[in-house]
């Protein structure tokens, strides 16, 4: 049973279409939504989303950076600050970002200044890692 998924970001609608299922990174753990899911609202964390378009479409992977999801009848809405699909991701740049964040985190541990900076780098790290994983998964899917 397909339902309509909309992914909205401040830059516009990143996705709108019929899907058979979607797996989202909820704050309380990943969760899957199939058609006829009970209505609910939950926060999202930085992580990958997995979309199965209705029909025979290829599975799509996207990197989300938080936000929240609303399941409401036949409509599922994901609100995220950014949503990048695998084909939009530059894995080279993501790798550079990941290394940078990792280095910063390593240095932080030694200097131990400021929790907020630590959080910031941690977020940057997970964003980069998500992007890398998303583009890797899509690669595997193709082969």
């Amino acid at each position: 049973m397909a339902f309509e998924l909309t992914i909205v970001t401040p830059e516009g609608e990143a996705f709108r279409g019929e899907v058979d299922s979607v797996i989202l990174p909820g704050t309380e753990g990943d969760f899957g939504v199939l058609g006829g899911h009970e209505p609910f609202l939950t926060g999202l964390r930085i992580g990958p989303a997995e979309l199965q378009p209705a029909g025979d479409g290829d599975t799509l992977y996207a990197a989300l950076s938080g936000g929240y999801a609303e399941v409401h009848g036949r409509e599922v809405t994901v609100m995220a600050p950014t949503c990048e699909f695998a084909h939009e991701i530059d894995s080279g740049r993501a790798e550079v970002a990941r290394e940078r964040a990792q280095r910063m985190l390593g240095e932080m541990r030694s200097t131990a200044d400021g929790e907020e900076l630590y959080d910031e780098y941690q977020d940057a790290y997970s964003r980069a890692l998500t992007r890398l994983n998303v583009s890797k998964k899509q690669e595997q899917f193709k082969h």
Partner: protein
Amino acid sequence: MPSLRDIQRRIRSVEKTQQITSAMRMVAAAKLRRAQDAIIAARPYSDRMYATMQEIGRREPVDEHPLLQRRDTGTLEVVVVTSDRGLCGAFNANAIKHAESYIAGRAGSHRELVVTPVGRKAAEYFRKHRPRSVGRVWTDIGDVDVNLAMEISEHLQKRFIEGESDEVVFVANRFVSALVQTPIDAPLLPLAPVPHQGETANGDEMPYKVEPNVGKVLHALLPRAIEFSIYRVLLENQAGEHAARMTSMESATRNTEELISSLTLQFNRARQAAITKELVEIVTGAQALE
């Protein structure tokens, strides 16, 4: 009287200026269109977000969140948004002037003032005129994207939650139309409380479950709301900048046209005068021979 060659040289130089101003006008027009598209693209997000917040507010009074906390204003943080570049008429000057008059109007309502400039023009001005109040600065904002809004919003939220600022206000140009941009001030933090209407009139039960609970979801939602208001301010600033540049470059181009036509007139008069002078010389020379 300037010589023919001098006038010609001036005409040529004004023509070159005209080429630049009209090119800038066209570039600004194209960028304005893109900036306007971005504003329109942001609409579904804001509509959905406000609908969800209303939905939550309808069910439970929303006031138990650090970002909603009202307290006496010890530190007032004013975020002033301008563009990076000039040549856009009074656009930036208006925003800065508005910020100054806002700050003057708020005198006495707070103990300390922090100015957070966004955009090079604001940064330059406040570094020069209020160096002790300038907090973190954002310049080279370039093409506005969500990441910039996220960065600014995280900074402001952190400061607010940790009590380093007690009230955050935005001063920026509002994009009314391609011809009108008005500087405004708008409160950002604390957030305005979400209206709680209690039961809906038709006795509709909760249409959905909130996981894990309303508080946690609010934690995810409110920062997004702030981020989004900042994103919107930045977009309007961007659109306003290009619109202002377009108008001012248009009038600059018109001015060069006027200048060129008056210089051409001068040039023709001078040329005519030279011809007349030569003729008179020839005629007098011929008469002298007779």
